[in-house]
């Protein structure tokens, strides 16, 4: 109801300005937050030809893999470019930027009526040398 009152009460210019301001603040892009592990040695970012594996959450990796950081790809409330492939693409980009050898999905929140219309992902960045999986 309030939305209707607001729209009626506002002029076209004010509405357009408010929408532009909201989009400028929040943007249509996904919200990307990264956390670095304290004490982990700084690593050079990998170049545009960077290729690494993104492992699913249920895969047991070599315990010697060291976690150097993690990323959350989320929704700003105005995000529209946020399907599953885009989320994985961002995880890949950030892992390369961290200089990681691999990434592993920790949590995947699928779009839902009560939550978000976006695929939201938490992934961790790993330095493993050669990643070995344990069955």
């Amino acid at each position, binding site marked *: *109801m*309030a*939305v209707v*009152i*607001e729209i009626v*009460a506002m002029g076209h210019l004010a509405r357009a300005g*408010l*929408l532009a*301001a*909201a989009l400028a*603040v*929040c943007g249509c892009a996904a919200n990307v*937050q990264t*956390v*670095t*592990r*304290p004490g982990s040695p700084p690593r050079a970012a990998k170049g545009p030809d960077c290729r690494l594996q993104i492992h699913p959450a249920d895969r047991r990796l070599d*315990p010697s893999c060291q*976690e150097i950081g*993690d990323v*959350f790809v*989320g*929704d*700003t*409330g*105005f995000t529209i470019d946020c399907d599953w492939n885009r989320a994985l693409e961002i995880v890949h980009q950030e892992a390369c930027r961290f200089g990681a050898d691999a990434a592993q999905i*920790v*949590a995947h*929140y699928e779009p839902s009526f*009560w*939550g*978000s219309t976006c695929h*939201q992902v*938490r992934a*961790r960045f790993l330095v493993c040398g050669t990643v070995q999986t344990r069955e």
Partner: protein
Amino acid sequence: MRPLALALLALLAGCATILQGPNQTVEITSDPPGAKVLVLPEQTSLVTPGEAELSRKQIHTLLFELPCHRPATGYLDRTNSHTVLLNVILGGLIGMSIDYSTGAVYRLIPDPIHVKLERLDLGAGADCGLASPGPG
């Protein structure tokens, strides 16, 4: 009439900011208890079981450490709180913008967060007591 409507809307704006605020108190536990937890990115620490008041706007990573146990990591993610629906009814676009900018529209999950620490097999002679006292 028009200024009155706008004033009313300004009062109603930001339902989640008013109702639950920008921070959330999260209960942090571990099995076994007594683990030292470093909360990132704030870099604050606590011992389990404990509570931390954390910003809803950002995600948090919890590093658990306990002697003779494998270090573990816990992840607090954010998801939309149901108060976002109140904005659709009451707060409108202004309220929604305020709530998203303060982060009050989010809820940190899981709450409580519980992490099970895996004991390392270090043999019978391993010293798994509390951290050694400082000099003096």
